[in-house]
């Protein structure tokens, strides 16, 4: 084993081979996704599929890992920033950068082993989850928000593992029709939302921790569903209470064989 990974050898004798062979997709390479790219790179992931249609802007530099002032001037695509970051650590990694909306090249996702979603909207999360279920891909979603409570701001976020066959984000109450409808109504007035680097780092680290446990189960905590809630004011992370009430529930979405694979 390379000395590079000697300090993570407790993950198992085949861990590096597994990491090197596995194919990871990351949708969204902004505040959250750039952290995930960075961590997966250092872990030794060998195959990346990375999506982001945006270019680096000055307002990204408060949180976009790997981006520089020069990238602002050059309008470097975020997918290029992520590629550069990966290559700086693993020159021979297989990287498929897609500098456009993931829906325009969704067919590339099908061969992924895990997909990370680092997107802003509920509707996009719903699309990713539906696609991931169709191709039997575990989906790890992260997201953060800053709410103005009037007297102070509240920073919160979540990390969810949506495992095919298990509770989906609708079952968990995270994706709700009323939220989707409200989001659709406000589509044109969304504006720019507050984002800061440290909650993204916390959430990305939790997501990568879930991923590592899936790929190389170094501890006996074989959880099939994760729904972690982050309170950025108290600096705490806890399993969502919702899971407690859903222990006996089975997902009744995505059940039919017609929900799998290409529609014929």
């Amino acid at each position, binding site marked *: 084993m390379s000395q590079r990974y000697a300090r993570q050898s407790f993950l198992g004798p085949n861990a590096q081979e*597994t990491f090197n*062979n*596995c194919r990871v997709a990351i949708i969204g390479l902004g505040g959250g996704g750039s952290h995930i790219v960075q961590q997966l790179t250092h872990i030794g992931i060998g195959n990346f599929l990375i999506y982001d249609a945006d270019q680096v802007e000055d307002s990204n530099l408060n949180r976009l890992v790997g981006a520089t002032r020069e990238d602002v001037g050059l309008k470097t695509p975020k997918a290029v920033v992520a590629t550069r970051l990966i290559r700086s650590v693993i020159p021979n990694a297989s990287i498929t950068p897609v500098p456009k909306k993931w829906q325009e090249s969704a*067919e*590339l996702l*099908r*061969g992924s*082993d*895990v997909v990370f979603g680092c997107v802003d909207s509920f509707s996009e999360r719903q699309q990713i989850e539906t696609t991931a279920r*169709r*191709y*039997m*891909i*575990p989906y790890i979603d992260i997201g953060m928000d800053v709410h103005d409570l009037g007297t102070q701001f509240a920073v919160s976020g979540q990390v969810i593992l949506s*495992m*095919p*066959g298990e509770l989906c984000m609708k079952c968990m109450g995270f994706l709700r029709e009323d939220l989707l409808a409200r989001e659709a109504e406000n589509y044109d007035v969304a504006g720019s939302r507050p984002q800061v680097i440290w909650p993204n780092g916390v959430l990305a680290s939790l997501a990568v921790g879930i991923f590592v*446990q*899936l*790929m*190389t*189960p170094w501890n006996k905590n*074989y*959880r*099939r569903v994760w729904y972690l809630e982050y309170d950025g004011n108290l600096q705490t992370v806890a399993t969502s209470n919702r899971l407690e009430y859903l222990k006996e529930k089975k997902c009744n979405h995505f059940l039919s*064989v*017609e*929900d*799998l*694979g*290409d529609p*014929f």
Partner: protein
Amino acid sequence: MRVLFKIMDRLLEQVRLDLLRPHAFAAERVGFLVCGVAKLAPSGTVILAHSFRPVEDTDYVDDPTVGAMMGPGAIRKALEFALNNKVGMFHVHMHDHSGRTRFSLIDARESARFVPDFWNVRPGIPHGAAVLSRNSAFGMCWHPAVPVPIEIDEFVVVGSPMFFTRNSP
């Protein structure tokens, strides 16, 4: 062409338990995995196992020269299912040992006999056959775009933890 086969860990466990049940006279059991199918970019196919249809006890033929011999009823029921559903059908049985496994000569011969019949009822979709061991798998895919059956390159057991069996580099 790369062929990837995915199955949920719970379904795989159900299949293994079913296939290990004793039969009155057959030395092993067989069944069919009902599968969705998708194209892989740039070239390939992913087979997505949805459910398992075990061959019924009464549909085995007593043939001591083989581990299990399906009677005409077993094949007919599987063909009917494929006729009525837009699915790929993958015959499955188990070699009860650990580690890598392959088809026996009989497995290869019998699969080549009946798998192409699925194209008579459900053309244009890959069908195939697979053999499981306790912790690995091997399979062949009859793909409409390829003139000869091709090995399944990789089995992915989707669950917690994930499990990968790669049969090709």
